[in-house]
């Protein structure tokens, strides 16, 4: 059976090595935090200027001066630090984060990412920190459903939506399979309720079924 959003978050959390520095993008990726072991030593970065972000704040904990990148109130863990926006994005752009996790409209076979604009002519362009996140970590993990509502695959030979970053995605976590994107192509890491043959038949991207080394 295909994965629920919660199960996807569990799978991603399992793949984050202990002690990693991680940025969780807005939306679905924030759910990953719920599945990190407290003793994992994983430190969360939020691009609005903090390392050591804790869980969402509730009730009396809510402080309007302490939010995540989605502008939701959060808490602070022991050992946290604050810094300004230029320092925060220097940390990202400089490749110091181990993993960024983002949603996507499309990912290409060469790891191109499209997640900021559908290119609709009447859309108001808004990119936020997406392009900085895309190039700003040693690894970029994408979380998305593999198929759009109209059944079209979102893992594609080449993105048709405007790009967020080129060749930046290393892993794609979807509801029916996890993929590793490398210089030699896209490999299936794991499937969930779908056969490799069916995956291959429904996606126009050449897939390698051998386990990722």
């Amino acid at each position, binding site marked *: 059976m295909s994965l629920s959003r919660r199960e996807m978050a569990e799978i991603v959390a399992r793949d984050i090595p202990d002690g990693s520095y991680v940025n969780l993008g807005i939306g679905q990726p924030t759910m990953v935090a719920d599945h990190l072991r407290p003793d994992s030593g994983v430190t969360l970065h*939020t*691009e*609005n*200027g*903090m390392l050591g972000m804790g869980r969402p704040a509730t009730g009396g904990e809510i*402080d*309007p*001066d*302490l*939010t995540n990148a989605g*502008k939701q109130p959060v808490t*602070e863990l022991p050992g946290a630090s*604050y*810094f*300004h*926006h*230029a320092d*925060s*994005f*220097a940390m*990202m*752009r400089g490749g110091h984060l181990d993993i960024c996790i983002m949603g996507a409209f499309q990912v290409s076979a060469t790891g*191109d990412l499209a997640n900021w*604009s559908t290119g609709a002519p*009447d*859309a*108001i*362009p*808004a*990119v*936020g*920190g*997406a*392009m*900085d996140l895309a*190039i*700003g970590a040693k690894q970029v993990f994408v979380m998305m459903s593999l198929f759009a509502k109209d059944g079209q695959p979102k893992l594609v030979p080449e993105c048709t939506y*405007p*790009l*967020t*970053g*080129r060749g930046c995605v290393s892993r794609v976590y979807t509801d029916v399979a996890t993929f590793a994107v490398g210089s030699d192509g896209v490999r299936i890491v794991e499937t969930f309720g779908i056969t490799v043959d069916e995956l291959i038949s429904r996606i126009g991207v050449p897939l390698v079924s051998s386990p990722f080394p």
Partner: protein
Amino acid sequence: MEAGAAVSVIKDGDTVLVGGFGMAGMPVELIDALIGHGAGDLTIVSNNAGNGDTGLAALLAAGRVRKVVCSFPRQADSWVFDRLYRAGRIELEVVPQGNLAERLRAAGAGIGAFFTPTGAGTPLADGKESRVIDGREYILEYPIRGDVALIRAHVADRLGNLVYRKTARNFGPVMATAAAVTIAQVARIVEAGELDPEVIVTPAIYVDRLVPVEVPA
């Protein structure tokens, strides 16, 4: 200094840097004073383009803004900007958030331009100079300077040294360096020497005017 007097330095046509990320660090009282002051034809540089009907959104609604430079104008409650944009009554320059921060820093740091990997190969690089350095593609970005910066800090001393609170720090420190005149609203002003010199985030050299704004308890 009173907020109205502080923002009276802003002239028609000015570029105004406005701190804040959402409401954290947003200098609401300074923006309100700017609305009262009446300067127009402004270019606003800020991370967002206004929320709801107050603050930046109210400034936009008052027709004072010619152009917005920001990373993320489109939000659930950005209806004022959305309406003006769709009516063709406001210009928009979308800048990736990290490039926005770095362009502001470059203005403050005297850097003429810099090569950044962010945005390379995307539509936001269209028309920009690009270059491959050590096998990676970069685009050339230029400084964003402000005539005036409006920021919110936590505590100032009388000289203008500033400390911030938590993630409300965000764009304040870089914007303070990037404008000819920086106006900071703060919750409290203390004597020189009361702030530990080791913890000052924005040195007084970057701050021109202080506006104390009481924070509701």
